């Protein structure tokens, strides 16, 4: 099934399994719904799949208030660029309630949002802003790359005790893959997944970055370079042991993401790897992220902003060129 269908199935099964779950957001009820919530208001009623006014702060705040009373709300912020309007509620309230009240109140909300980059929608409907939320103690940040992961991670997010930012990628919504339909299927948060094993370099990504990394790995394979692709799946919690284990083997790492490269999630990944593996690395950790420009509308320019196989291969070649040990050498 597609990613869109997998996410729909996760929401469907959560609504069926638990009365505490309800969805709220803009244009999420039928007949206006076109994304992962399509059909759910028809099945469960508009009380549980609730269209809201265009009021992102109140959508997030309402989810928080209901969560404090024991509900498990899934709020949708239609496009991630709009999340700034809800940021106070997410950052100052959802993230901090448990700590600030000594555990007396909590906000186990899930905020689903979509990155629209790559559609020619310009600078305000394209951004991958997950790094903002990685910087906030109390939040969890999830970015799936496959339909299977999408279903398993969304299920975990909905029932997780902490507030989760669940980032969907519009360019992945129609991507197909095998998905367990068992309602009991979930993937724990904080567990990275090796999407392709390899020996010479680890490509670390999440979301669409994983797809580009797999493309680059195929190109590298033809040149005799064996690239491992590690999908972080969640940025917070971050599976540091899996990162370290992989790169300890390959001795080289390239981090790939659609978020802006400068001060992006890859900076944290690179810093951790260099702290944990200093002296074992054969080359500095490379990063391939979006260029540091507002997202341009013209496709010809936008294509130059995001990571692609060529940019990733070039980064891998830089690590190989600067490396002190030879490809395939394991000693």
């Amino acid at each position, binding site marked *: 099934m597609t990613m869109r269908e997998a996410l729909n199935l996760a929401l469907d099964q959560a609504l069926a399994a638990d009365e505490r779950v309800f969805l709220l957001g803009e244009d999420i009820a039928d007949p206006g719904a076109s994304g992962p919530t399509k059909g759910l208001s028809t099945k469960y009623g508009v009380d549980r799949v609730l269209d809201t006014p265009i009021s992102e702060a109140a959508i997030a705040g309402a989810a928080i208030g209901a969560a404090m009373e024991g509900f498990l709300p899934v709020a949708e912020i239609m496009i991630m660029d709009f999340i700034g309007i809800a940021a106070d509620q997410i950052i100052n309230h959802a993230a901090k*309630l448990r700590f600030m009240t*000594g555990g007396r109140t909590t906000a186990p909300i899930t905020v689903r949002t979509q990155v629209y980059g790559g559609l020619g929608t310009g600078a305000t409907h394209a951004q991958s802003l997950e790094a903002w939320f990685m910087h906030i103690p109390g939040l969890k940040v999830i970015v799936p790359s496959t339909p299977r992961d999408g279903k398993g991670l969304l299920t975990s997010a909905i029932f997780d*005790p902490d507030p989760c930012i669940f980032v969907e990628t519009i360019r992945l919504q129609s991507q197909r893959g095998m998905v367990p339909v068992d309602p009991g299927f979930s993937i724990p948060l904080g567990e990275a997944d090796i999407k392709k094993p390899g020996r010479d370099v680890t490509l670390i990504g999440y979301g669409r970055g994983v797809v580009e990394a797999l493309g680059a790995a195929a190109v590298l394979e033809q040149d005799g370079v064996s690239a491992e692709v590690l999908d972080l799946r969640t940025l917070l919690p971050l599976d540091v042991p899996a990162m370290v284990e992989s790169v300890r083997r390959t001795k080289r790492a390239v981090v790939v993401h659609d978020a802006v490269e400068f001060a992006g999630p890859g900076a944290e990944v690179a810093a951790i790897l260099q702290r944990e593996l200093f002296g074992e690395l054969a080359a500095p950790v490379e990063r391939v992220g979006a260029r540091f420009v507002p997202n341009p509308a013209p496709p010809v320019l936008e294509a130059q902003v995001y990571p692609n196989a060529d940019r990733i291969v070039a980064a891998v070649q830089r690590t190989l060129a600067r490396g002190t040990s030879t490809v395939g050498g394991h000693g």
Partner: protein
Amino acid sequence: MTTDRTAGESPDESPDVSPDVSPDVSRRLYELMALMKAADDRLSKGIASGEFLCVYWPPRGQEAIAAAMGVCLRPDDRLVTTYRGLHDLIGKGVPLVEIYGELMGRQVGASRGKGGTMHIARPESGVMLSTGIVGAGPPVAVGLAMAAQRKGLDRVTVVSFGDGATNTGSFHEAANMAALWDLPMVLLCQNNLYAEMTPTEHTMKIEHVADRAKGYGMPGVRVDGNDPLAVLSALTDAVNRARSGGGPTLLECVTFRFRGHYFGDPMAYIPPEQMAAAVAADPVPRFRSRLVAQGLYSEHELDDIDVAAAAAVEEALATVMAAPVPPSDELDRDVYGNPQNCPV
């Protein structure tokens, strides 16, 4: 839809209305107001003298509103308040030790001392949130009220905020949603005439906050916020309306804030004549005089209430000052419900 229950331009000049309340209710109102004032006075004395140090946003002067709320609401009714919440918290039944404990950062605080002055919650008393962000309360209150509606409970959510909050986008978003969904809410504006250091006439074109209600399709009511009986009457109407499924009300209580925005505020922006008029209309002595004048209670009986309030405050303060500060392991506690693989 807007009802102005104040008599004229200045609510402080309005005659005291005398709704039908029992002497016991009047006594309870006075007890709460006396305790709120005593709790504030003791903090002011302690901070000013250097006896202790804490950050504090004093509600002195706004006691009538919170006392009315304390009398009107059930324990299970929900309250969302702000950093200027000492009076609201006392009114809603949060023990003074838990409030002072939070101000002083002691383990006996409502949040084991970790939340601080601005972030006190106590669900057992219905206090779900105190926010330090102006305007952030109403959206959360929408969710609390939605939860009551979904559970079929007849509980009401009151969200308390100042005049300044009504200029934020999140207030507007929440007010619209509350009206749209007929939520069991009261939007309680404690209009103390200043948004931090800026007077309301410099922050809004309209004169009365309550007039904003019309734009959302909910009733707006404006009362003298220094008269506990006037607030009680209007609040009771709004709460009954919400409880019976009639939807939200915007209730504007016009009041004043004697100690400025934060404790230590030099208040250079407050004209002396305005302060003098406000002091003359101080709700606590004003209500006291009224109870005596009406023959409900003697000066002596009210003195006893004041003495009991001061004693309760001293006892709470002593308990708090003797309590330990949070141990270092509190730093990592309650950051996450499930901290697996989260940074520490």
